[in-house]
């Protein structure tokens, strides 16, 4: 099994709950990396703090499990000092967009070559079910016992506006598309953002009466649609998935190399 080559088997079964979508992201990632044929020594995975961020410990790469919200900042240090390495930065929705929101938009703006994967379960899983900036108006959470009045971010629009040169959305249900999108994101030379909608049956599911993990997977099927589909025109509340942005802009490490050459020439 290809998956086995990329994981640290001794830590399995992993700590995630039954049916947690985070494991499906791990699964998709392993397939994407297998398809690209990357060598494990050339991959650095940098994660923050959260259920999602535990993914780093399970992968047999150079793994850096950092502090809440700051994974991208650490990753930039690694990438700038070793531009030849492939950087994968999985984060939770709270991790990436609440406490780490500032780092997120600035990483998008810099267009540094790495892949940010936002494992969006619309909740703070690790701390036990508080609302996140992705939960959305009208949802329930342990810290929104009456109802959540916070509006949600749209990760795709935000990443696009901030200047990411590859922006995509996938889901834990659409598992044929997931590795393909991840592969495209990793291959893209520049800052790639992939939002993966993943179920947290234990907290989001329970609090919002979404039923079992199976049910939540079903919801991902019925509530999403490919970009530009006819279904979207008929039902605007459907969430689009696919690749939204893919464009070329000067990449940050390459640009810095130009600065080095310019400085050295003037010496």
């Amino acid at each position, binding site marked *: *099994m290809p*998956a*086995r080559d990329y*994981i640290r088997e001794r830590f*399995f*079964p*992993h700590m*995630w*709950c*039954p*049916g*947690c*979508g*985070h*494991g*499906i992201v*791990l*699964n*998709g990632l*392993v*397939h994407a990396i297998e398809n690209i044929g990357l060598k494990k020594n050339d991959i650095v995975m940098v994660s923050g703090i959260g259920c999602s961020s535990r993914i780093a410990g399970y992968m047999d790469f150079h793994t850096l499990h950092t502090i809440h919200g700051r994974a991208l900042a650490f990753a930039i240090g690694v990438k700038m000092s070793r531009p030849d390495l492939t950087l994968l930065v999985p984060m939770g929705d709270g991790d990436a967009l609440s406490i780490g929101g500032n780092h997120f938009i600035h990483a998008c703006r810099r267009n540094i070559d790495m892949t940010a994967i936002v494992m969006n379960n619309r909740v703070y899983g690790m701390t036990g079910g508080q609302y996140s900036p992705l939960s959305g108006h009208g949802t329930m959470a342990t810290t929104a016992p009456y109802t959540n009045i916070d509006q949600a971010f749209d990760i795709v629009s935000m990443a696009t506006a901030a200047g990411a040169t590859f922006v995509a959305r996938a889901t*834990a*249900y659409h*598992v*044929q598309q*997931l*590795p393909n999108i991840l592969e495209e994101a990793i291959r893209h030379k520049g800052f790639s953002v992939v939002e993966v909608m993943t179920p947290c*049956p234990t907290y989001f599911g329970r609090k919002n009466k979404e039923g*079992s*993990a*199976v049910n939540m*997977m*079903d919801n991902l099927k019925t509530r999403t649609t490919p970009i530009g589909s006819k279904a979207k025109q008929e039902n605007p509340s459907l969430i689009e998935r696919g690749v939204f942005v893919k464009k070329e802009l000067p990449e940050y490490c390459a640009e810095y190399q130009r600065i080095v050459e310019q400085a050295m020439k003037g010496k």
Partner: protein
Amino acid sequence: MAKLKLRAHVINREWCKGCGICVHFCPRKVLELDEFDKVVAARPQDCVCCKLCELRCSDLAIEVQTEQD
């Protein structure tokens, strides 16, 4: 590409958490949860080797081994 032929469903019972995702979304209803809430291939002859179960397993607990026809 040649059609894939099933060799076996390799199930890691230690890792399977019985979430039922693979069971529910198998297009051919090949899989079932047993009395211990672990997955088993109850009707392997119906399997079309789409590998969706393998890709959807959050626990990397199921592998669909195939051979070329």
